[in-house]
């Protein structure tokens, strides 16, 4: 079949190069952030268990929490948690029958991205001020 001359007609749309609409990207991101959040909760629960286990275990967990690795995990989780919360609220609206039009979904997608970044920056500012 490879050497059949198909003429100069356009090739069929390729799934890998299909540009996803913003609403599809934000929907997939809901799933990714939800699963990635496990890193943050495991770190925090490990820190709590280490605190009751022994001074040595706590020193280790607390070092990770306050190191740059912990900062990246916790800050990333904090943004992911805001994102997942906002996207989850949109899902509740979808379930109730609101915001299902393409234009509305586009707007809510932009709101989720902008809102989650704004809330994350605000959370960091409040955290470092107090």
């Amino acid at each position, binding site marked *: 079949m490879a050497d059949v001359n198909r003429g100069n007609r356009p090739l069929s749309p390729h799934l890998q190069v299909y540009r996803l609409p913003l609403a599809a990207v934000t929907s997939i991101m809901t*799933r990714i952030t*939800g*699963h990635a*959040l*496990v890193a943050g*909760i*495991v770190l*925090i*629960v*490990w820190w*709590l*268990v280490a*605190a*009751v286990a022994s*001074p040595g275990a*706590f020193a280790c967990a*607390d070092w990770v*929490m*306050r190191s740059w690795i912990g900062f990246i995990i*916790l800050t990333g989780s*904090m943004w992911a*948690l*805001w994102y997942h*919360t906002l996207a*989850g*609220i949109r*899902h*509740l609206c979808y*379930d109730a029958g609101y915001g299902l039009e393409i234009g509305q979904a586009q707007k809510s997608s932009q709101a989720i991205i902008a809102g989650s970044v704004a809330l994350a920056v605000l*959370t960091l500012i*409040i*955290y470092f001020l107090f």
Partner: protein
Amino acid sequence: MRYITPRKSAIGLGAAHEGTQHHWYMTVSAVALAILTPLFMITIACAIGLPRELLLAYFGRPLPALITGLFVIVGMLHFIKGTRIMIDDYFQGAVRKGAIIFSVIFGWAVIALAVYALARMGLGAIVVL
């Protein structure tokens, strides 16, 4: 002419006898978590950086303990059911079974560890004279 109405054909439990409970559980836990999320962030943000003695006392107090306990329990149950959907979407056969079992065991292990830690911090705090 069909005498059965569309409502009549849609109503009832169907062959599987379930199906809506999962979605309803995710809806209820989502609303609970939307309320708990800001509270949990504040709770953890106040605790980061505390020395061990103060951290133990902090989570011995009712509000930090209740917020943390509720968030981890409701959050991990939401996680188990959410992961189930992801597993059903992407895996088949034995891998699917194994992944579901792992996700349920993992979720409950995290819950058990958090409850154990919070109980240890909370139960020692009350001194009856």
